[in-house]
């Protein structure tokens, strides 16, 4: 498995509160990696750093042999728009736009025509079984439907990596399971690498491998786990 993304010795603090105290991780191509740990362990911060959204105070972040931690915000934004997809717990859709346009938005930003972008968005809605919601606004959908729309928006540009932060944290278990099922299925179909942040062992169960954090550092008791290999399910 070739390495696609790595973080080396990442340190990040919010004011005086340390969030990460030197974390080193590697993510291979096509892998689905869960980052787990109790709340406040720094797992969301690690995701934001790896995705180039937050700039770490110290340490290196590399993507496909390029160090990206020193890049300008504009350059990192371009990278995120082109190669990364992000999925958060809730509230990420443009509330005023119907589902199809929310999904089409990244394509429009990349310069696609309205008609093409809409066709692609509708195709995604069909793949996710919510084509009837194309013209509904987020406020008119259930939480699960909103997250599926957000998933479609994250994947519509066919990113290399999908960063998901508690994507089912605001959903009931069955709706959450449907979203996760689709996330994993689509990621495997598209050979998308996934970094999945969660505190829930059942969500982490969808991953090939688990990285455990505790108090801003790798959990020493979880280190053996990542070495367990887990029978090369990936890709």
């Amino acid at each position: 498995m070739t390495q696609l993304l790595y973080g080396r010795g990442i340190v990040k603090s919010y004011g005086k509160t340390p969030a990460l105290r030197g974390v080193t991780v590697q993510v291979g191509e096509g892998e689905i990696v869960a980052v787990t740990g109790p709340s406040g362990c720094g797992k969301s911060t690690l995701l934001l750093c790896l995705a180039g959204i937050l700039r770490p105070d110290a340490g290196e972040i590399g993507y496909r042999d390029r160090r990206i931690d020193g890049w300008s915000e504009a350059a990192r934004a371009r990278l995120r728009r082109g190669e990364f997809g992000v999925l958060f717990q809730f509230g990420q859709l443009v509330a005023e736009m119907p589902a199809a346009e929310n999904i089409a938005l990244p394509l429009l930003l990349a310069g696609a025509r309205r008609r093409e972008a809409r066709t692609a968005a509708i195709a995604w809605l069909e793949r996710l079984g919510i084509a009837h919601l194309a013209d509904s606004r987020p406020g008119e959908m259930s939480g699960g439907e909103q997250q599926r729309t957000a998933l479609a928006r994250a994947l519509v540009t066919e990113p290399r990596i999908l960063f998901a932060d508690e994507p089912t944290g605001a959903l009931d278990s069955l709706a959450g399971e449907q979203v996760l099922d689709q996330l994993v299925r689509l990621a495997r179909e598209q050979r998308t690498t996934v970094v999945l942040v969660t505190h829930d062992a059942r969500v982490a169960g969808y991953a090939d491998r688990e990285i455990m954090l505790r108090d801003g550092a790798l959990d020493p008791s979880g280190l053996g786990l990542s070495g367990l290999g887990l029978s090369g399910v990936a890709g």
Partner: protein
Amino acid sequence: MRPGTLLRLAVTGTRADTTRIALTGFGSALGALALLCAATVLAIRSVPDPTEPGRMMDAPYTNGLLRESGLRPGLAFALILLTVPVLLFVGQCARLGAPARDRRLAAIRLAGATPGQGLAMASVESGAATLLGAVAGLLCYLAGRHVFDEPNAHGLRPLPTDVLPAPGAIAAIVFGLPLIATLVTALLLRRVAVTPFGVARRTRTRPPRPLPGVLIVLGVVGYALIPAVQRHDTALAGYALPLVVFLGGLAAAVGVVSGAGWISYTVGRLLARYARRPAALIAARRLQADPWHGSRALAALLGAVLIAGAAAWYASWSRTDQRVNAINDHLAAVAFGEPTVVDSPNNFYLRAAQLAGYGVLLAGLIAAAGLAVAVANSVVERRRALASLTASGVPRGVLGRAVLWQTVGVAVPALILAMATGVALGRGVEGSTVGDESGTYSCTAPPDAPQACNLPLGQARQLGAKVIEPPHITEQVPVPWGQLGVIGGWALGATVLTAGLGMVFLRASTAPEELRTS
């Protein structure tokens, strides 16, 4: 619930709540100040002139507007009108941080408060802020009376700092404003306070319809009737005129402000159909989703621009009127063979118009502040979605342009509508031609028919009367494009500036910290 508990619960909250309370207080202080000034102007009493029976002595002020009893009601009326944008500003402030307050109210309801108690808390907050503001306004007023009390060598004062409105009037202003604010808040928050589950899901509301157009037409027609009423029935005019002026103006203003809702929706629909770039599309959907946002944000500004439009027309009319009258006077003097009297140009009305202009400028500043509050608020309310968009690589420039489109898209047509309505109102009252009714003539009756001059001129001529009708000119009042352009430019500038302010908030609102879930 004890009053102390009520007050403490009413004023606890986040920074947004504090800002809202401060701004509400500020607006209320300005409003109270304007109303106190109006009451003072009305409290000036004219004393009969002992040397000339039946004539009133001028009040002892350097300013003509204050000196002459006939002009003071107009000045008071203008000051009262000035409170309209101020009150609209207070209303806009009530929206600041509204979602947070709604959640807080819902939480208090969940903790067991009755709907009445929830409502009381929200209303008392507004009431307390307005009362504080009104008291501050009163203090400023009293201090101002002291500071500006500078009679000159002749004992004339620049401002009526020697009269005080009746204590009852002062009390009515200082306590009336908070009372109105409390009642209005209670009315506006009625639905929020009743449910303990916070704000319901946002669902699609019925799109606005162009019905407010009727209100504008009503106002303009009402104003157009004013000259006719004045000519025909002076007794009726005394009672009906102020009512027509007030109701007609109000109808037109409400029509323009609520018409902005329809404009917003229509612009949004057109933009959504033809937009190519994401920024315009985002703006279009926002305009459609909440067409009343633009209307609320621009309310005070539109009110000010409407008044400014009317004032601009009035200034243009009075300039033309003065020039045409001077020419006609000259022509008449030549025809009658009298020496030409060159009047020193009477700038009084022009100065009054200029003063009105300053008032409008002040109203405009307040209105722009209201707009800034609204724009900043709309960005802060959306910060989670904005932060996630930035996280997914959407450049801030796109989001900024969306805010700009969203603001300017409504502002330009709505400002044009407000100015046009203002001009139409002014034109209704003063007419668009001057000099057409200068029916000056001289008639010398022949000795055999001494009554001839009492007959219509044609018959008088037939009876041999010597009639001299001096030539006179009539002129169309030019539309003051230049001045309207300046007004529109300022208003649009203020709008764009506040949209820029929104982008400052955008920078803070798209920080990745907004994305942390715990």
